[in-house]
């Protein structure tokens, strides 16, 4: 109960910086941002790939339930799809703030460039978003029909969300679930392609040796699964009945997250060792920035400490048997992966492409060091708060973890 109150408070407090940040973004554009023409992408792009990774990861894990029929994860199936929708919306909102002309986002649909990985990524996640919404509607429809009978404001919301459907029969539910399986199956390659596409967006850039590797799309997918799985474990121990009801499942989820974390660490290590051994100067310069630069603590403390060592220890030690420790470990992963995403974007950009370019002028937009401005933090924290609110609303209005009793059974 106190955890839920803390949750709502954090979410509502987060709306204040969001309002201020949005106002500043609308009135002053990018003037207050700290990124420039040398480091053109900053906190917001890192946050975008963070959220979009959570979305792809949560969705792919939901396929365990809806495609592969893994019964033990059934209670988080709908929560996983809901998480995928919320985090995708947060990701899209973040990247929308980041583009120079908010009003032109639709250009990517009418002026396509088939050679651009970014264009493909946007088309694919648009398809992915539509698929998520349809799948989630099918998963929720029967319960929304049941819920609208409960009356009150929750009932009214359910009536709207059910899009006027009144069919609460078991046959209707079975029909919905028959449609869910092919949808969820199509969703797997779609999620793999679009999140692999996010990795490819970085990987294809030959000008940035730090990113230019065939491993990049693969690492993105594994990180997505690890962080998405961790977020699901945290969400299912907070929401609905919470960890007390889901002990068994949270422990299982912890095992999955542990495996994915170790796989992710293996891939990252491979990438780093090959890069260091090759000793390509720009690659080494970027890596040095990440592990020994002014923000090396993001790598050692956030990414490796909080995001890897703490959760691996907690998930491997006897603490793995206690759902509360597993939740804590997964929360550490969710926090630590912020560091992973920051260390993808910024060290890749913070190296001079042409020697002397950043010392040719004394200009705040022509610097290779970057630390987000207050304005960027406000928008970022605000979007985080918005995410908490959206999760909270889902908790209140949507029966996510179990099917509601049928009306006949209630009597």
């Amino acid at each position, binding site marked *: 109960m106190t955890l839920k109150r803390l949750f709502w408070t954090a979410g509502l407090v987060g709306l204040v910086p969001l309002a201020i940040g949005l106002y500043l973004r609308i009135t*002053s*554009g*990018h*003037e207050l*941002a700290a990124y*420039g*023409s*040398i480091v*053109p*992408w900053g906190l917001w792009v890192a946050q975008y790939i963070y959220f979009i990774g959570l979305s792809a990861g949560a969705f792919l894990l939901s396929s365990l339930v809806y495609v592969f029929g893994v019964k033990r994860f059934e209670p988080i199936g709908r929560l996983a799809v809901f998480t995928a929708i919320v985090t995708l919306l947060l990701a899209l909102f973040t990247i929308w703030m*980041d*583009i*120079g*002309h908010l009003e*032109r*986002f639709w*250009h*990517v649909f009418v*002026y*396509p*460039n088939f*050679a*651009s*990985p*970014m*264009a493909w990524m*946007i088309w694919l996640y648009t398809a992915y978003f539509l698929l998520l919404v349809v799948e989630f509607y099918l998963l929720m429809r029967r319960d929304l029909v049941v819920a609208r009978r409960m009356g009150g404001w929750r009932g009214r919301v359910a009536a709207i969300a059910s899009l006027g459907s009144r069919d609460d029969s078991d046959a209707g539910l079975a029909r919905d679930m028959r449609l869910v399986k092919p949808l969820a199956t199509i969703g797997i390659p779609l999620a793999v392609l679009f999140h692999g596409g996010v990795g490819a*967006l970085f990987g*294809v*850039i*030959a*000008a*940035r040796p730090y990113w230019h590797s065939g491993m990049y799309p693969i690492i993105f997918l594994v990180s997505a699964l690890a962080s998405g799985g961790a977020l699901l474990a945290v969400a299912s121990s907070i929401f609905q009945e919470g960890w007390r009801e889901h002990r068994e499942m949270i422990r299982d989820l912890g095992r999955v997250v542990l495996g994915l974390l170790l796989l992710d660490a293996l891939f990252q290590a491979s990438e780093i060792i090959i890069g260091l051994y090759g000793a390509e100067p720009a690659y080494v310069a970027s890596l040095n920035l990440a592990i020994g630069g002014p923000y090396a603590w993001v790598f050692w403390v956030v990414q490796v400490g909080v995001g890897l060592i703490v959760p691996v220890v907690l998930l491997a030690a006897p603490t793995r048997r206690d759902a509360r420790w597993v939740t804590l470990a997964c929360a550490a992963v969710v926090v630590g992966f912020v560091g992973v995403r920051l260390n993808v974007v910024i060290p890749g*950009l913070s190296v*001079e*492409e*042409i*020697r*002397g*370019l950043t*010392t*040719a*002028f004394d*200009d*705040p*937009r*022509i610097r290779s060091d970057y630390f987000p401005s207050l304005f960027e933090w406000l928008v970022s924290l605000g979007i985080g708060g918005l995410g908490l609110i959206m999760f909270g609303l889902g908790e209140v209005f949507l029966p996510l973890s179990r099917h509601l009793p049928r009306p006949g059974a209630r009597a």
Partner: protein
Amino acid sequence: MEAGQVSRRELLKSAAAGATVGTMAAASAVATATEPVRKHHWGMVIDTQRCVGCEACVIACKIENQTPPGVFYTVVTREALPGARNDRPVFMTKPCFHCEQPPCVDVCPVGATYKRKSDGIVVVDYDRCIGCRYCIVACPYGARWFDFGDDYELQPAAGETISPEYRQYRVRTPDGSPVGNVRKCTFCLHLQDEAGEYDREAGRWPACAKTCPAKAIFFGDLDDPDSEVSRILRERNAIRLKEELGTEPSVYYLI
């Protein structure tokens, strides 16, 4: 009945195939008819032995293109060569290289930046660009700049800032393009005449090359064997930066 259906289907098939081929042929015919043929390959040869690092090119460029703070279509870097004394640095003026294989063009999600078919100049369509800055990330040469909407505190006496870029003569406003867009060197293409020709005698020549007091910046048509740039490239040893990326820059350096 059965045979009739098949033949009907085959008829439709061949009709569809014929239509497709016809459309494609027509489309390619229209493309060849309307796409301008390559008339020039504008490029530069920059003599680092002559450059004194005065930055007159930077100032001339800013005045010509009326660029805001933080946007420099050309820069001058000053780096001591390894082992050399710092009082003899190598100066290098660096505009956009207008690569033959520009990585910035491929990555643009909306096709807002492209290489002009007629003369190879890489341009930005300010009205289409969404400001995602992927092209800045993809450019290996740091030749692209985001217009953050920053302005110089001291405005010119005339008041409004009007840039002649692309001959669009946009009046600078706080949020209208090119604010929020990526900007770059255009080889001062607004100084070309209607036929796409520059004229050095008439002063219609890229501002940096026109201004350089040390005459270190040569500009011209790399496709024309009689041009000054082609002649220099035949006579002297030139390099291009980051050849290994396969970008084929149109700007050469004499070292």
